[in-house]
Each structure stands twice: as C-alpha cells, then as structure tokens.
C-alpha cells in the first residue's frame, strides 16, 4: 500500500482538481483522504455518499465555575493569550482566544477552572462516484486546526485501505507549511507538488519543498498552467532538476478545469479533452514510480 500526498504550498494551483482526477482514475484501487480540512472541496467533485460519521474532539478550553470563582484575577494575570476577560464583572473565557494550555486551571486557588474537551468537527467516511472510499472532515468554524483532525482523517484512511486491501491512499493536503501540512505529510510514501509558473507559485513551492525535504519523502511535480509564463516554467523545471524532484507533467492554462468544476465534475470525465490524456498518462507514470 502506497500513500501519495498532493500539496501545493500556494492555494489555487489546481491541487484539488488534480487530486480528484487521480481519485477518478484510481477507482476501486484507492482510498481517498481530504486533509484540506479548513477548506475541503473535493466532495464537490466526487459526490460522496456518507456511510459513517463521527464527532471529533481535540484539545481543551478553560471554563470558569462562577459559583466557585472568588474574583482574585490570578487567571487573567497569567494568561498569555488574553483569553480571560472581566469587563462584565465576571471572569469569562473567550473560546476563540483560549489556547487550551491549562495554566489558569493550575493557578486558580479555589479550583474553579475546569478544562473541557472541545468538539472541533466531524470526520466522515463516504463512498464516492468513482467507487472508492473517501475519508473527509469538517472543521468547526474558528476551531483549532492543530493537525489532529488531519491525523485522524489519515489514520481512518489507512485503516480502511488496510482492511480492504487497497493499493493506494490518495491524500489532498492543506496549503501552507504549518501544522496541518506537517500532519498531512507524516507517513507519506510520495509527495506530488502541484505548482503554477507565477512568482508566487515558485516561491511557495520552494518553501514547501524545504519542509518535504526535512521528512525525506521522494517527490514529483506537476506544473499546471505551464504556458502562462514560459520563463518561470523553465525556472521551475530547473529547480526540480537541481533538487531531484521528478517532473511529472506540464498542463496548459485551460478554463475547462473550471467548466468541469461548475458541472460538479473532474476534468478527466471529459474524455475528449487533451488534458484528460495528460492526466491519465501522469497517473500511469506515478504508479510505475511508486512500484520502484
């Protein structure tokens, strides 16, 4: 079983559209995991039917028992996150600011502060129109995306793939370089970068590559919208060659990605599009790379 994680650093490069295309091509051989839990969009293309859902709890937040509170203000004094307010005359915790460190609970002289586990979202297992299982999640608004929900999605995907003897786990990763991405990358066999030839595309690719390098995961790259700027495209190709990142394919700047999305489809469902052939070839190449 091989786990492929698709990331981009920068948003809007076509990462989710391509991940969903691979999911369509892999069909029953794969389990799909949407780890972009902040802005999960893959379900809009893969039309999953939920077969299982579960609340997900992660981290804690402080709650002050007003009956016990003696208004000493120690909690507010030591809180480094400005999470405790007494402008109403009562000491109250702002959930949006509370980091869940628990320091206030330890310092409170009368034991009035309790740390309560937080429901941060839901985790789902579904069946997609490509006849594969998909694990995805919905993070609650403003919830702490510490990467734990991402880890949960990956864990469930792995368990499902192992149980059903699947060959691949295809993971749509999160943007950026922070905790959710670090969590997306753990345990991956191969990383696919989706980039675009723009000043920001190459900048963000270089940064996220530095992160992947720390984990020593082999990687490949798809240059999407490659004809938008040939000079930057060449710069990216050079960067890939210099860093032993496999250059998987170039795809053209083409609005048919958006046309397909508007119909709730992946681009590979349009069998007449030349892009479909390129993505199919890319998936075949990826499978060969993973066998090595």
């Amino acid at each position: 079983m091989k786990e492929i994680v698709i990331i981009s650093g920068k948003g809007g490069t076509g990462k989710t559209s391509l991940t969903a295309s691979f999911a369509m091509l892999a069909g029953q051989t794969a389990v799909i995991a949407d780890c972009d839990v902040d802005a999960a969009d893959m379900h809009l293309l893969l039309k999953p039917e939920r077969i299982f859902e579960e609340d997900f709890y992660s981290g804690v937040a402080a709650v002050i028992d007003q009956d016990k509170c003696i208004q000493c203000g120690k909690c507010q004094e030591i809180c480094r996150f400005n999470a405790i307010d007494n402008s109403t005359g009562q000491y109250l915790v702002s959930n949006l600011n509370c980091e869940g460190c628990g320091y206030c609970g330890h310092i409170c002289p009368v034991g009035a502060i309790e740390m309560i586990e937080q429901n941060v979202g839901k985790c789902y297992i579904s069946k997609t129109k490509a006849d594969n299982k998909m694990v995805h999640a919905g993070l609650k608004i403003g919830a702490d995306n510490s990467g734990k929900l991402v880890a949960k999605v990956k864990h469930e995907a792995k368990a499902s793939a192992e149980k059903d003897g699947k060959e691949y786990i295809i993971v749509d990763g999160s943007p950026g370089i922070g905790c959710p991405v670090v969590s997306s990358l753990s345990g991956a066999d191969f990383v696919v970068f989706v980039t675009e030839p723009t000043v920001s595309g190459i900048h963000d690719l270089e940064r996220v590559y530095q992160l992947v390098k720390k984990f020593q995961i082999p990687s490949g790259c798809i240059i999407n919208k490659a004809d938008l700027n040939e000079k930057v495209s060449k710069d990216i190709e050079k960067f890939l060659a210099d860093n032993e990142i496999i250059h998987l394919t170039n795809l053209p700047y083409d609005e048919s990605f958006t046309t397909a999305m508007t119909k709730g489809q992946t681009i590979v469902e349009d069998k007449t599009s030349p892009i479909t052939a390129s993505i199919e070839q890319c998936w075949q190449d990826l499978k060969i790379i993973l066998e090595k």
Partner: protein
Amino acid sequence: MTTSIVCLIERLKMKIAIASGKGGTGKTTVATNLAKYLSENRKVVLVDLDVEEPNSGLFLNGSLMNQKEMFKKIPNWESENCTLCGKCQSVCNFNAIMKLGENIMVFPELCHSCYACSELCPTQSLPMIPMKMGMLTEYKVEQLGFVGSKLDIGQEQAVPLIAQTLDYVDEMYSDDYLKLYDAPPGTSCPVIEATKDADFIFLVTEPTPFGLHDMKLAVETMRELKKPMAVIINRYGIGDAEVEAYCKVEGIDIIANFPNQRYIAELYSQGKLIYPHVPEFKAELLKAADYCKHLVKEN
C-alpha cells in the same frame, strides 16, 4: 447601506482585512493593487499576515526600511537546582516538555509559550528564552508602507508570528494610516488571529463551486467574530452566478468584480501589479477604493 456598516461610524481607526476561505482566489492581487492605488492619495500600510506563504512582497518593489528577526519564548532547562519532580511535564498540555531519565527535554516546535512549566516550576529551573521563529521585513514602496513576516520552515505555529507582526504595525504606524491586512486562507486559528483585530473584512472569492463553498465558510467565520464584511469577486465571468445569488440572499455587498482575463494571469505570473496595465481591472479597483474611502469617511 447595511446596519453593520453604520456601526463602524462610531469607530476611529480603520483596519481592513482581506481574506478568503479558499486559497488562490486573488487575495494578494486585491491587497497589493488596492494598497498601492490608495497610497497614491493617502497614508496606507499593507501588512502580509499570510506568514506561511507570504506573497504580497513579490509584487511590490520598494526600498528596505527594516528587517527584524522574530522570536517566541520557550523554556530552557537549567539542571543545577532541578529536583526532577516532573511538574513541568504534568502541566504541559502540548507534550512539549518531557522528563526522560535524569534529563528534561524541551520540544520547541510544540511549545505554545504559555509559561506554565516555567512559572510553576518549584525551583525556577525553566527560565523562558527567545527562539527565532521567523523574519519581519518592512519596505517603503513610494508612498506605501509594507510590512510582512515569513515563518521559518519547520515552525508549525503561525499565530504567534501573526500576533507579533500586528503589534509591530500598531507600534510603528499611527492611527491615521489605513491598515490593510493580507490574511492567510482557511477558517482556523491563523485566520482568526489575522482578522480579529480588523474593523472590516473584504472576502475575495471566485465565482465557482469551490469559491462559493469556501466563501460560505469564511462568511460564517466572520459572523462568529461579529465582523462586518463585503465581497470582491475575482475572475468574474468564469464559472457561474451562484456567488452573486448567495450574496444577495445573505445581504452581503459585492463591491467589485475583477474580470477573468488570461492577460491578468500573465501579469500576475510576472509579479506585476495589474491596474496600471488593464483599464477594466482599474475600473473595478476604483469601486473597491471608493468603498474603502466611504468606510473611512464614515469613521
């Protein structure tokens, strides 16, 4: 005019955060073009708070004013008086400090700088010391002030760097500056940190199913924070009309529709500002600028 805007009249300062649920919708394009255009006639500072992947600076060529290493505080074990009581490990909710045999190990990337271990240590054996987490740079781009921070690779938490960058801006730029924040994408902690201090939010989206879906999440997030907001549609003309329909139902103003053009994407790819080259883009930028002026004037 919506009631939320009326509430703003009573405020004095003006901070506008430019946010989006989905990445890659044109947040940075709007932020850089709007900031540069407005700075031709008034004091403006643009702040790049997308510290994981900061891009605004790539589109603005200015002269470097300041460069500053940014630190967070982490505990540092001093063994001399330590009794290995294990209190530090037991109070840390982030598994960032551990007693291993005769040693206390600190894992800086997991530390949230809450000070609990340090201040609850009975022998004061864990003083907090600074650890570099990123770099802040400040530029002057003609009249425009620009401040941006970049998180070091391997640092997982964007929030402390965002918070310190905002503190720096508040210290260095007086209230007569219009402050524009380029916020990170998504709906979780970094976005909250970057927007909770703002007076008004511009949500940038594209008229596609992904754009709409993620914009709805962003709208809910901003409502949770009780922030007034308006929408800017980028790549207008592609996709469908669902974003407009949604905004109408929800009573959210759409203040500009930036056109979908390959030429705009090409200019962007080269790191260029758009409005000096594309009149149709500039016409929409003027609408957004007017909206800002209107908000500030009402202040």
